[in-house]
């Protein structure tokens, strides 16, 4: 078996096809960590451990086996993501200490986008900042988008949507990304529960000037006090907010802005590819945002989409939600992120002869 580890700063989650465990962060030593994983595996042999890593910067364009060369390279990313990289490095080193005898495979959420074309990758800033400070689009949800790209034949033009805590839209042509909504940081792109999404930079300076915000206060506002929370004033989860749609003007406005931003990126993607053959939708929030997905697809039905009515089949891992005569096919990919990582790990192991 191959347990999948998903680590963010708040908790460490272990996933196997039959089990999901949260918060083993307080485990102090390598022995305890080893015992925990082995007890989860039970009678099954642990063949490898796979990790979902949020950020791989410029260095990691594909899954990696953790070896002694990995750590110094990964440590160099600290400057981009100081909240995450050092603690993740520490966690990976602990796993490496506990499991020297099996492969540890890391999957990065940003690897897929190292192939972005230059015109999508760079911002129109003085070039020395792009080059020296490595300011460019890193993207996100690469694991989901790459899995979606793998579902269609080469040469297809695909819009891939991922509905997770963040929502991202990626245009994929010939299995390569041509555009992605999320940018240098998760502040760019589509608004989320608490983050602002796309913004005119002039607004930042205006707010700082008029309201005397420090850079730290403005950073906090944009990443934790904006989005749905900011527009509605309600600090509630998306699943609860969506139930109040149509009953509260502020909530209606927030969802309208949200949908409009998604539409903008779908349009950008279609334009970048000169058309679209498939739309594939994935992510952990699919069930929550099903009515939004329906509305969005309805709005772009002029492209030649004939969507079937709700409710859709929730049991199939991959379901086609368009009718047979639809020119553009729309699929819902209900595979979970750990399941995708698990499958990719098997492929990786096979290719590397483990």
């Amino acid at each position, binding site marked *: 078996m191959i347990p999948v580890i998903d680590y963010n700063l708040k908790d460490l989650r272990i996933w196997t096809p039959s089990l999901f465990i949260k918060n083993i962060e307080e485990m102090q030593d390598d022995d305890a960590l080893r015992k925990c994983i082995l007890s989860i595996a039970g009678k099954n042999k642990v063949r490898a451990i796979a990790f979902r890593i949020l950020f791989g910067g410029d260095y990691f364009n594909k899954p990696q086996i953790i070896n002694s060369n990995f750590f110094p390279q990964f440590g160099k990313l*600290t400057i*981009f993501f100081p909240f995450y990289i050092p603690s993740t490095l520490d966690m990976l080193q602990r796993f490496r200490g506990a499991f020297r005898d099996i492969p540890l495979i890391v999957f990065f959420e940003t690897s897929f986008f190292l192939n972005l074309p230059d015109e999508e990758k760079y911002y129109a800033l003085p070039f020395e900042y792009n080059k020296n400070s490595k300011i460019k689009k890193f993207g*996100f949800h690469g694991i989901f988008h790459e899995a979606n790209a793998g579902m269609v034949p080469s040469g297809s033009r695909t819009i891939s949507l991922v509905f997770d*805590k*963040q929502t991202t839209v990626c245009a994929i042509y010939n299995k390569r990304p041509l555009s992605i909504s999320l940018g*240098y*940081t998760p502040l760019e792109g589509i608004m989320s529960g608490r983050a602002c999404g796309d913004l005119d930079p002039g607004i930042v300076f205006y707010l700082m000037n008029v309201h005397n915000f*420090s850079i730290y*206060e403005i950073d906090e506002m944009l*990443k934790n006090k904006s989005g749905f929370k900011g527009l509605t004033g309600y600090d509630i989860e998306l699943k609860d907010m969506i139930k109040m749609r149509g009953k509260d003007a502020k909530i209606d406005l927030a969802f309208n802005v949200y949908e409009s931003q998604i539409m903008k990126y779908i349009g950008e993607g279609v334009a970048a590819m000169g058309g679209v053959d498939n739309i594939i939708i994935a992510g952990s929030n699919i069930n929550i945002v099903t009515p939004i997905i329906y509305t969005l697809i309805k709005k772009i039905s002029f492209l030649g989409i004939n969507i079937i009515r709700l409710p859709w089949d929730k049991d199939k891992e991959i379901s086609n939600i368009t009718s047979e005569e639809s020119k553009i096919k729309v699929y819902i990919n209900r595979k979970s992120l750990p399941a995708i990582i698990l499958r990719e790990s098997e492929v990786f192991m096979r290719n590397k002869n483990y």
Partner: protein
Amino acid sequence: MKELLKEKAKGLKANLNKFYKSVENFKLNSANIGEFTDIVAAEMKESSFNKITKDKAGNLIGVIEGYGNKDAVVMVSHIDMRTANQQKLEGLDANGMEGFKSGIVSSVYAGALIKRTLLPLTGDLIICCVPRVECCDFGIQYLFDDFLKSRIKKIKGVILCEPTGFNINLGHKGRMEYEIVVKGRLNRNFLENRGINMLGTMFPLINELEKVSKELPSDFNLGRSGLRIKDVRYSGYQPQDAVSEFRIVVDRVFIPEESESFILNKAKTIAKTVYKQEPDITINTLMAKERVKTYTGLESVSEKEFKPWSMESHQPFAMESLNTLTENGFKSDFGYWKKIVTEGSYTYGQLKIPTIGFGAGSEDAVSSGPNSLTADKTEKAGCGQALIVLRSIGMPTFGWSSDEI
């Protein structure tokens, strides 16, 4: 940031309480200060400080290394102690001057918290416990002349972990001890019109100093200067003695507008005015000195003086520190110590390194017992100090620190 610190602080709570108890229960005196610093050093080691060392003056230094090694922030707490004799007289359980312990615990805790969060620093965090040797700033001087000598220019700021009631303190009055020495010969009718009783000869000067003490200048932030006659000594009170001499020892509290030389000259002028009718006397004023011997065996002679200091509130290190506290829920403001003196006398008063004070409790806590502050308040102070450090030399965490990924 506060949320992350809170999260990580949970796992440290038990350690903090244990450390706090062991420090609180330690009956510190000049004979066992080495053992005391060993306890603090052990806690630094437990918290994975990158470097722990003691210098020859007995300063304990713990370093948390940053990535860039560019700037540094220095946190300073002090160690007060009674002499072993004092402790014997006052009883083992007397609290003495043990309120300083909260500052030591909070500074080590702040370091442990930063280590535990694994939030990277761009420069080094240097946490120092400085034993106060008598009434002078010998310990902190040695620290900056020795361990920190090569990096003085890279120090972005100093945080004094002293009680400030969670405010940012920016200075205090200075304190110096000086002597007025009056010499003459009794057998040549020394001070004859005032009587040959030495005490009687001193009274006019003592009286004049008392008068002067009521008219001393004042500073808007720091308050009024003060003068107290601490001691009088005399020698050669028999007519056959070659020289008769008396000394008045003055404990002087002063504001930055009054320089030491100004104070000494003024004292001399007062004495000359009092004894202007006495032709054969000499009057001198001099700064009191004392022989310092640290527990590590280092000996030196040091002037008994703490310089006054008052840093502008618009100094960036002070502003940023206050901003980070208020943004994270502290109800802090700028303030000044009215009663105590700190190592800021040297770090800002002498070296002009931006210096602030931040800690739990009122300044009265320093001279009270260790129980005057709770572990909770000390923990809160440690969190505040960690926030100040992270704002100052923490790696910026914009954008990607979003909760939304």
